[in-house]
């Protein structure tokens, strides 16, 4: 897995066009704020989500031809804030507020939230009847996060007090391979992509990812990059770990059913075992630990878990709807300019 450097994608609307045009120049006031962004459905708004994704990527990766000074350029941050506002509001609309009883034990509340979750049966579908093409599409969608697995939640590390910080590190150290680069989960995912004949280059499929896929990753970056959302960042990670081991077993089974061996399934098999460890640490030591130290963010922890489940459900529904119609769930490749 080489160093990260992505290409600036083709814009897909006025927001991404204005942002990408500016990024090709020198950092400065050339990027005008878009004013209040009106979007009927921010989570499914291709233009908004792509622009936001690229704005966040400045913190994760180099972008070919883009000056690194843009990362903290005030006009960029102002522009990004206008994209975040409708997105954050749309997510809040999907999330039911925590009740008092839940706040008394955040670990137990997280268990209940996850147990009650009835998301679309995407992993069961892929396990039992998904086609190779659908499984490959699923891998391409997930590459938006999995090639930087764990990174969005690592932004929370310096913001936590010792007990929840130690718990987060216990999880993240394992995500990052326990000191071994080849066991790093992002590297395992790249290996799986390569084995399946996909391009494991970071950002290779960015133009093929629909808004909901980008939204699922933008959600993590939003929570991770804003200290005020540290509770949601922790809750998001806990929810992610608590809903991971069983679907990952099914994705591994899907690949086995389609004739692939250990090379391809290792990433998924590893997650069955790893996340069975992580989910307990994340729910009780990390989320519970943070709620004990900072009770004022307890409700935001539960918000993060519920936001994850809602956005993931929206994403899974869109994939399954596309497949039911016999269509690809990926965006059409952008036309190559003449």
């Amino acid at each position, binding site marked *: 897995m080489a160093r990260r450097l992505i290409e600036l994608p083709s814009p897909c609307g006025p927001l991404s066009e204005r942002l990408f045009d500016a990024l090709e120049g020198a950092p400065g006031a050339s990027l005008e704020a878009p004013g209040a962004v009106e979007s009927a459905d921010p989570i499914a708004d291709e233009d908004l989500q792509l622009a936001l994704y690229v704005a966040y990527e400045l913190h994760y990766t180099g972008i070919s031809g883009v000056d690194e000074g843009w990362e903290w350029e005030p006009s960029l941050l102002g522009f990004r804030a206008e994209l975040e506002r409708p997105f954050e509001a749309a997510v809040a609309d999907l999330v039911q507020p925590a009740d008092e009883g839940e706040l008394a034990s955040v*670990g*137990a509340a997280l*268990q209940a939230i*996850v*147990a009650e979750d009835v998301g679309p049966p995407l992993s069961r579908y892929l396990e039992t009847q998904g086609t190779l093409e659908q499984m490959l599409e699923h891998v391409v969608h997930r590459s938006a996060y999995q090639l930087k697995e764990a990174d969005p939640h690592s932004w929370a590390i310096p913001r936590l007090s010792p007990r929840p910080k130690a718990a987060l590190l*216990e999880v993240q*150290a*394992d995500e990052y391979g*326990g*000191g*071994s680069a080849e*066991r790093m989960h992002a590297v395992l995912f790249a290996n799986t992509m390569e084995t399946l004949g996909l391009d494991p280059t970071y950002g290779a499929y960015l133009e093929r990812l629909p808004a909901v896929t980008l939204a699922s990753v933008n959600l993590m970056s939003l929570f991770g990059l804003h200290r005020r959302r540290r509770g949601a960042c922790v809750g998001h990670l806990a929810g992610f770990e*608590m809903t*991971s*081991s*069983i679907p990952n*077993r099914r994705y591994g089974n899907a690949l086995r059913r389609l004739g692939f061996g250990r090379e391809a399934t290792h990433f998924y098999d590893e997650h*069955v*075992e*790893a*996340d*069975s*460890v992580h*989910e*307990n*640490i994340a729910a*009780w030591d990390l989320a519970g630990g943070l709620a004990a130290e900072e009770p004022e963010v307890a409700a935001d922890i539960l918000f993060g878990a519920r936001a994850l489940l809602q956005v993931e459900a929206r994403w899974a529904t869109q994939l399954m709807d596309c497949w039911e119609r016999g269509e690809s769930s990926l965006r059409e490749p952008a036309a190559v300019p003449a």
Partner: protein
Amino acid sequence: MVDPNGDQPSPVTITPYPDGPYLVRGDFVVTDQEGNELPTERRTIALCRCGKSRMRPFCDGTHKLIGFEAPSGQEPWPGG
């Protein structure tokens, strides 16, 4: 694997998590009854407590599917 403690042995702890597995930390070795080591790759492992894992003795998250319930602390003596 990185061991920040170097040669310092760290004591083994076994922690039952609420409605979940036993988490084992420290300088542990898992063996079968014959003494053969079961390879483990991570510093913290989860041992199945519900009995229904499909990769026993390790946890695979199945306890969530079957509604397994158990406290983290010791259960009270029945009827006591």
